[in-house]
């Protein structure tokens, strides 16, 4: 099923939660809405589900106008951040809920409901918990039950609000992989909201980066990481070194000193140079456009992370770089630095 969102505007008093948002989600996609808190991602999800109403705009699910229907008629599976399991019902009854509240005319008989619940509990590998109450489950188990409950109504689309937000790091990792494999199994069009870039890049087919109620970029995980469209995306996804530079004509200057890099079509004026930590090439002093003293080195795994105080410029600019361990850096050493890949965006403020 496809989802189409057109020119959605949503205000809470003076605060604009969504500012003219357009989004198309294709059949069978697993899409991530990624952004910091307050970026409007959860509001967008709730509007698609029918739990919130936009001030203006359109929502179409499979081409059909969804705003004409309430949440109970949209046939959308929604998984809440804090699970929202019915605390007075057993796991079995939680999953069965959506089937039991169906209008009498289309309601299945008890045996069919039981079989369907059993099937769903098998799908989330928790059939042995059927008679427990939500309070007796761990966070990860609750989340999987919440998912099974949402899937019970055979939803046209599946929406997940920070599905792993309340879980500890290890369980998160496991559930991420599990969600991805579940999606490839059942292939229902899904959107999940997250503020965790790693989660978005690892799980989703496509990532929508949001900030301040606007969509900053839509692309594959590779796209948004390698070709960030805006300064915000570059800063939000992946660790970046940000240096204030001045672009004049085709040349780029840092604190008055010219850097040996191309402006790459950036407009003249105050700008920001974004370089990934691992995209700084290191060499002996005197090579490269930048020079600095190594202040501190920590080595782990395949990389060494070094804190470098840049020489020249205004006062002390300290950056952190990730270098491969083929050349061990020493504290106190003076090294040359050259950005291998970089982006220049106009400074906004």
């Amino acid at each position, binding site marked *: 099923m496809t989802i189409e969102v057109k020119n959605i505007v949503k205000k809470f008093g003076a605060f604009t939660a969504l500012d003219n948002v357009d989004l198309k989600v294709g059949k069978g996609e697993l899409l991530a809405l990624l952004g910091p808190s307050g970026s409007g991602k959860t509001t967008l999800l709730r509007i698609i589900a029918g739990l919130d109403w936009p001030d203006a705009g359109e929502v179409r699910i499979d081409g059909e106008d969804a705003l004409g229907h309430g*949440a109970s008629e949209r046939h*959308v599976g*929604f998984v809440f951040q*804090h699970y*929202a399991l019915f605390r007075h019902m057993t796991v079995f009854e939680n999953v069965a*809920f959506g089937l039991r*509240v169906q209008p009498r005319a289309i309601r299945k008989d008890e045996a069919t409901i039981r079989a369907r619940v059993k099937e769903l509990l098998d799908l989330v590998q928790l059939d042995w918990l059927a008679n427990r109450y939500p309070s007796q489950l761990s966070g990860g188990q609750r989340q999987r039950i919440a998912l099974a409950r949402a899937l019970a109504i055979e939803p046209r689309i599946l929406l997940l609000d920070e599905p792993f937000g*309340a879980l500890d790091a290890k369980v998160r990792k496991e559930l991420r992989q599990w969600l991805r494999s579940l999606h490839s199994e059942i292939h229902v069009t899904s959107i999940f909201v997250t503020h965790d870039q790693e989660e978005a890049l690892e799980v989703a087919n496509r990532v929508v980066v949001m900030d301040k109620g606007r969509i900053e970029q839509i692309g594959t995980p590779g796209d948004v990481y390698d070709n960030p469209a805006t300064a915000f995306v570059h800063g939000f996804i992946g660790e970046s070194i940000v240096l204030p530079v001045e672009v004049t004509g085709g040349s780029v200057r840092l604190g008055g000193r010219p850097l040996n890099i191309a402006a790459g079509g950036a407009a003249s004026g105050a700008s920001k140079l974004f370089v990934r930590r691992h995209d700084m090439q290191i060499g002996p002093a005197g090579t490269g456009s930048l020079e600095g003293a190594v202040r501190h080195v920590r080595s782990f795994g395949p990389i060494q992370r070094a804190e470098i105080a840049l020489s020249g410029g205004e006062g002390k600019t300290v950056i952190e770089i990730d270098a491969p361990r083929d050349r061990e850096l020493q504290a106190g050493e003076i090294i040359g630095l050259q950005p291998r890949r970089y982006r220049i965006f106009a400074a906004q403020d």
Partner: protein
Amino acid sequence: MSTQSSFVTPATPLRAYASTADLAISPPSHREASDRARVVASPKDLRTEPAPVRFVIIALAVSFLTVFVVLPLVVVFASAFSKGISAYFAALAEPEALSAIRLTLLVAAISVTLNLVFGVVAAWAIAKFEFRGKTFLITLIDLPFSVSPVISGLVFVLLFGAQGYWGTWLQANNIHILFAVPGIALATIFVTFPFVARSLIPLMQEQGTQEEEAAISLGASGLQTFFRVTLPNIKWGLLYGVLLCNARAMGEFGAVSVVSGHIRGETNTMPLLVEILYNEYQFVASFAIASLLAMLALITLVVKTVLEQRLDEGQTPRDDPSDH
């Protein structure tokens, strides 16, 4: 959760209290001495009061309770049975007594039912929606608690009495509110309004709206959501509120006294009849009715304790601290 933790460590606040009192009362020179005494005492003694102090405090509390609560209760039953069991039951079988019991049950049934509905609606509105004037509404719900019951009764006299705002219109249309069941029910509803709403608001605020949203997204209608999700979640709190509401409705004296008119065999509730019989020196009859009210109080206490336990249980089995 919070109620439990405050019970776990009663010694700590007590201790803090005692030591600040120490400091306030004793002149500077004595402070050093008391400090030294504390250093000498073993760590265990620091956490709890010395045995004599504990004994005095407990003895004080128990004797206070005995004089002001237990003794009166004993007197009620002793006086009721002073002329024997048959006199007791004969007093209860009097037509006036029966009529008072019937009226009290009727008024309680009406006011508890209506306040159940009003209370749930008000608590729902306050706990689940954001709107302007919410704080004002909460204050308004508490109003009956802060107004003297006699004033509550007088309000209805001013509204519905012969000289009241709507008095002439009511008389013209032959509608009897004052000195009749509707007036007594109205006064009782007013006085007992806060109980249900008050016991539900914190509970519903804590539970939030997510379960309801989940139910709706699963295709449940508004009514299905209410009866299958909301109501089961608040049932113990609701019963608790109803219980207190009922106890007050049956025992209310002041407000009802103003609007009842004391028509014998017609508009006297049990508390009113107790007073009338007492003033007529019919002590056995008076205390017999009083004993019924006292029993109601005792039953209410027991049920209340049970419900409080259920309420605590309903909230404690949450092992995941992030799950709020």
